[in-house]
């Protein structure tokens, strides 16, 4: 019986996956790939990237800025709220 318990413990130990490393946070460029110019809305962008720094203009256009460690992602929304341009620096 003891032998069976030991074998079971050993088996479980072998099949338990090693603790995984936390997944690397995707870069701004990688997150940008989930968005589509001419299609993605502000809600889509908020869901994918979170809240950015918003600069709004009287024309209705908005610029959203996301800053990574060394990257800067700038998104332009046209007055209808659709993503119209992007740039990464």
């Amino acid at each position, binding site marked *: 019986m003891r032998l069976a318990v030991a074998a079971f413990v050993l088996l479980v130990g072998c099949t338990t996956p090693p603790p995984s490393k936390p997944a690397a946070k995707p870069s701004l460029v990688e997150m940008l790939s989930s968005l589509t110019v001419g299609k993605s809305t502000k809600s889509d962008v908020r869901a994918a990237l979170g809240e950015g*720094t918003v*600069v709004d*203009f*009287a*024309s209705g*256009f908005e*610029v959203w*800025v996301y800053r990574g460690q060394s990257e*800067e992602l*700038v998104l*332009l929304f*046209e007055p209808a709220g659709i993503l*119209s*341009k992007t*740039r990464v*620096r």
Partner: protein
Amino acid sequence: MRVFALVLLAFCTIARAQDDAVVVTALRDPVKKSYKKMVDGAALFEQRRSELAPAAALRFKLIARKPDTSLKGVELKVEADSIAIPLKVAPDRTFTIERNRTALRENAEVTPNRKAGSMTWRADVRTPGLPPQTRRLGDLRLECEVGMKAGLISNYPQGFLGWLDGLIGQRPEYCHRAEPRYLFFAEHPVFSVTLVDGARREVLPVDMLYGGAARDPKWKQDRYCDCEALFDRAYFVPLGDTSWPDDTRVEIEYMGPNS
């Protein structure tokens, strides 16, 4: 003791002025400009042109400051006690200025038929033959120097820094800083500005667009800034960064298709 305090105050105020983005002018009315300063600006252009922008021409430009302001049919005059000389404004709202002894002697003003605060002014230095949506860095460097000399900058009021106004205002040397906050205005709302020198390309950070509003959203509420309605067209350039030669192209990508 009083003298020491004054010297200390002067030192601190100058130091502050050199650090700040504040640009000081001494205007009686923001919509009027000193004729003498504009003549001085034109003289500086002639003096510095061969170094910075040999093929360029200087004009001065009127820019609507409020969305509902039309500059169509705007009229300009050089006015003093004994003279009133009309200036010819081109359809693109640019004009040139001639030297006139009487106007200089009488400390004339250049006066438009528009309300104060409805428009602003800039020097406009252009090398002909550049591609559309492209400026030349040497032109912008000279534009800044002339603009500072001519007092065609944001409308900080007389007395903003007291008696030191005259000492620290309108110095073209301001333009030689690595990143002076001298506002340029594009023809249309700007999405991106890129410096190009041969194979070297560098997109300017968003903090150099829109008067730096992405870093300081309250800045656009600055009542002395002449950017108000022009916010989406405003950009800074690293004028004093000498690693970029004067022939560097400044390529502007607009927000909309109106390019």
